[in-house]
């Protein structure tokens, strides 16, 4: 998080009067940007506008439930739940490496007491950390004592932190009352199928009521329990997100049906994620050569489900011990050894003041976008292009091309700028070796984009990007992403209309597999 950039943002004259702020809050969305076609990219379509106040309060500063919030607010996971009760073909719990970033992987397991101290330490260091999740590395509800003890400790010491958990759903119906008791108001269920025939290809076995089940029978129990748990949660008003792993050839077409099934049972958000699969992970899918989807295959599936319900596209598939904004991982700063040595003072007032500042900055960003969007009004064109953005948060173009660990991707049309995903890339600046290969990796990752917005870029990569047909844009450095993207798109349309350039479609892009190298 670039604190200086935040201050720039809130002091550059965009901060509005209180009345205008309230108006802008009411207008801005829980998630995503004005898409113009169907639902917003995720969260609510028009913020508080179409959401009951109590739901808006739950999602507005939850980075996972609100795309718009994820630019500003951070989350952390504590790894208190090592045991699991099902086996998935995309998971291998044996493999653990500090450079590895994918679900189910974690470096240190914590006791509930250590976890509670870690949460307070992080909350004091990162005041925009608003959400604590328990996501594993196994299944939180296969470790119910540890999971709920952790929630209890945090609920008692830091009640302003939102609690959430992510589960495979097998034991969910048994724990819904306890979840409600600790005020856990966000639950994610991983649902990859509603057809046990398909489930049998994803889950080799489950352990349920003292027995190991395999094949169709295992998948049937799992899907019944997942859907029952989802219904029980939504009946109690607990917000549910459904995660689905897209596995080409196994459940890719079927996920449209999953989408319908979870929507009809009241799920709030659907997150379709690409399969992470490489032989070195040692998973069944990694070893048998099962591929993950391409960027355009993933986007096409997300687009086809979008008319049905809110889609999440900003998931970074983070580790069970991740700390920080989505897309960054500061867990190395908070190892058990460092935490136990820290003197932690939980200061709720400072956190509140800081978060109020974040809200101001957020409102300024929305206002800037509205202003720019107004100028697009009346334009009509069928042209849609993708643009990649290098950012380190706050909704600003504030990252150097060579330092970006990921690019956020926006779809630009006359309806505006819509967040549609992100692409992980290796660090381009790695101290002098393999640089050319890294640049090729980046180009492959954003090959479906017409432009890449950066705070700064060197001469060499600039030339190579232009050669690859991607326009490097650095003229909007440290400005708001959406406002800048819309301004660039307007100019692009003008150039197409005047015949100065010809609009050509771009190709597909690759979703990066393997380890995220920490920028520490």
């Amino acid at each position, binding site marked *: 998080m670039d604190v200086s950039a935040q201050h720039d943002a809130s002091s550059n004259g965009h901060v509005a009067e209180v009345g205008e702020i309230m108006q802008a809050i009411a207008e801005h969305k829980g998630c995503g940007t004005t898409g113009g076609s169907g639902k917003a990219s995720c969260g609510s379509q028009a913020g508080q506008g179409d959401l009951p106040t109590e739901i808006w309060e739950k999602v507005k500063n939850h980075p996972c439930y609100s795309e718009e919030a994820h630019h500003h607010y951070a989350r952390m996971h504590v790894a208190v739940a*090592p045991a699991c*009760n099902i086996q998935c073909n995309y998971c291998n719990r*044996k493999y653990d490496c500090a450079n590895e970033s994918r679900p189910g992987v974690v470096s240190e397991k914590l006791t509930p007491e250590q976890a509670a101290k870690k949460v307070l330490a992080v909350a004091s260091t990162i005041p925009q950390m608003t959400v604590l999740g328990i996501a594993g*590395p196994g299944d939180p509800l296969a*470790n119910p004592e540890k999971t709920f003890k952790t929630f209890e400790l945090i609920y008692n010491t830091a009640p302003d932190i939102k609690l959430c958990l992510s589960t495979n759903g097998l034991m969910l119906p048994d724990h819904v009352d306890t979840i409600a008791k600790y005020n856990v108001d966000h639950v994610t269920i991983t649902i990859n199928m509603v057809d046990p025939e398909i489930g049998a290809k994803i889950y080799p076995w489950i*352990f349920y009521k003292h*027995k190991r089940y395999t094949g169709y029978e295992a998948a049937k129990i799992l899907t019944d329990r997942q859907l029952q748990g989802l219904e029980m949660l939504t009946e109690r008003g607990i917000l549910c997100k459904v995660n689905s792993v897209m596995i080409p050839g196994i459940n890719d077409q079927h996920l449209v049906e999953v989408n319908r099934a979870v929507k009809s049972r009241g799920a709030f958000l659907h997150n379709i994620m690409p399969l992470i699969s490489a032989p070195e992970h040692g998973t069944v899918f990694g070893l048998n050569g099962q591929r993950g989807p391409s960027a355009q295959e993933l986007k096409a599936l997300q687009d086809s489900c979008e008319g049905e319900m809110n889609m999440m596209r900003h998931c970074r598939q983070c580790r069970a011990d991740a700390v920080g904004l989505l897309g960054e991982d500061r867990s190395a700063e908070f190892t058990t050894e460092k935490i136990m040595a820290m003197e932690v003072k939980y200061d709720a007032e400072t956190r509140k003041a800081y978060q109020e500042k974040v809200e101001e900055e957020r409102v300024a960003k929305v206002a800037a976008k509205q202003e720019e969007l107004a100028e697009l009004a009346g334009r009509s064109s069928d042209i849609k292009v993708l643009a990649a953005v290098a950012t380190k948060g706050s909704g600003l173009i504030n990252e150097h091309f060579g330092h970006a660990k990921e690019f956020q991707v926006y779809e630009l049309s006359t309806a505006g700028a819509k967040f549609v995903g992100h692409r992980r890339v290796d660090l381009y600046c790695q101290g002098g070796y393999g640089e050319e290969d890294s640049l090729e990796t980046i180009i492959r990752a954003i090959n479906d984009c017409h432009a890449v917005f950066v705070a700064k870029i060197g001469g060499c990569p600039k030339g190579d990007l232009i050669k690859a047909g991607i326009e490097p844009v650095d003229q909007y450095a440290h400005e708001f992403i959406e406002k800048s993207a819309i301004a660039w798109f307007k100019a692009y349309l003008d150039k197409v209309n005047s015949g100065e350039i010809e609009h050509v479609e771009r190709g597909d892009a690759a979703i990066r597999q393997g380890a995220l190298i920490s920028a520490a």
Partner: protein
Amino acid sequence: MPFKIIASQCTSCSACEPECPNVAIREKGGTFVIDPKKCTECIGHFDEPQCVAVCPVDNTCVIDTSLPRYQAPA
């Protein structure tokens, strides 16, 4: 007295510990171990040994062939 955990394969996930009906499993030196004096192969409790059924790594909870098989009391 017969199940043991092969330490080099144990991921220390702790899934087996609460499943054991004899409270024979505990953590020791980073992995989990079965107390052979307490293990009954789950005979009389369940149809299948619970540690074997829940363990995520195949062939990690195995019969300890160096010891005689458990004999249920007559």
